[in-house]
């Protein structure tokens, strides 16, 4: 066969494969700029009724931890909440909550109603710490190693599959290193 015959077919195949792969990508999954970077400096008061606030120093105590960005107005947060409760019940990993752009009273009521999986919470009323974390949608979950380095970021509600295939391995890797 001559190249003139083959070339359009090859071009078509390349285009089809490229567009096919493109279809499987999620445009909402934006690569985080903060992977392998230190968490921003912050210190936030706890959700009313809770004792422990959240600060960057709490993420540098040598223990791998999860930081979950949530809000009472966030519908998808409800979807992942049972999984977070389960994580907390099994004491798999310290889990901290960042209440993003939420009225503190609403956050407190939300936790009272659906259960409180968090060890520490931080009230980010204006969303400034969220922006420093590169948060652009809620929920988001960060895996932070014991030295305050962000090693993994999950965007959107955590499904059991995400937990098994991405988050737990990221925790294991962070603990190993």
């Amino acid at each position: 066969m001559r190249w003139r015959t083959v070339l359009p077919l090859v071009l078509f195949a390349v285009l089809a494969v490229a567009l096919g792969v493109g279809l499987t990508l999620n445009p909402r999954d934006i690569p985080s700029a903060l992977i392998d970077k230190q968490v921003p400096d912050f210190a936030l008061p706890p959700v009313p009724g809770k004792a422990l606030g959240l600060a960057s120093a709490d993420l540098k105590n040598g223990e791998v931890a999860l930081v979950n960005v949530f809000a009472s107005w966030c519908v998808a947060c409800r979807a992942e909440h049972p999984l977070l409760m389960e994580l907390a019940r099994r004491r798999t990993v310290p889990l901290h909550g960042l209440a993003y752009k939420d009225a503190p009273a609403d956050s407190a009521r939300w936790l009272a109603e659906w259960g409180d999986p968090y060890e520490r919470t931080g009230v980010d009323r204006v969303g400034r710490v969220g922006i420093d974390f590169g948060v652009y949608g809620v929920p988001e979950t960060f895996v932070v190693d014991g030295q305050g380095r962000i090693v993994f970021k999950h965007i959107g509600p955590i499904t059991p599959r995400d937990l098994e295939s991405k988050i737990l391995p990221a925790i294991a890797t962070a603990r190993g290193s």
Partner: protein
Amino acid sequence: MTPGGRVTPLPTLPLKGRGEGTPAPTDPPLLEGRGRRRGSSTRIRLRITAPLFVFVAFLLLGNAARALGIDPPLPDPAQEARAVDLHKALRCLVCQNQSIHDSNAGLATDLRRIVRERITAGDSDKQVIDYVVTRYGDWVLLKPPLNVRTAVLWAAPVILILLGAGFVASFHRRNRNVALTLPTPLSDAERARLNAIMSSDEPPPAVRSKGAGS
């Protein structure tokens, strides 16, 4: 936006056509209840159009209020112009294909405020951009920077133009020899036959192509 930060209400739209007052002279008088057909259909139309106007007016006013009412501009017009230019260059991460200048999303509002804050704090345009990029990555820039990862993206138009030019050139080369060969003129016998066909009223005999048929 007025300097005081208040939104001037838009004048209410005058309702064109039939108002709620006196009916137009051509209309039959509106009767009570299940009266005449024509009258009740007019009233139904009124009952639908009037709330529709109010609804549309609310939509327009709501958008105007939201677009104008949130952001207080910087007092220095030059700084405000820089801020707006930067807003137009930054992607809204929630709505993805809008700039934060065009977006009403909460995050876009926050980022607009941060850009203004950084400018007030004396940052250069590049420092402001770097501030946002360190948090959200290159993706936040509506115009992607030229680097190793985006080289293909930037080179693609040039490559495609070159490919197209190559295709056109090869097409021309191939067709140049063919196009200049004129068809052989008809022989005398063929010409005579053609004339016969053209001048007769009979439909021409079916032409059988060579090799066709049994």
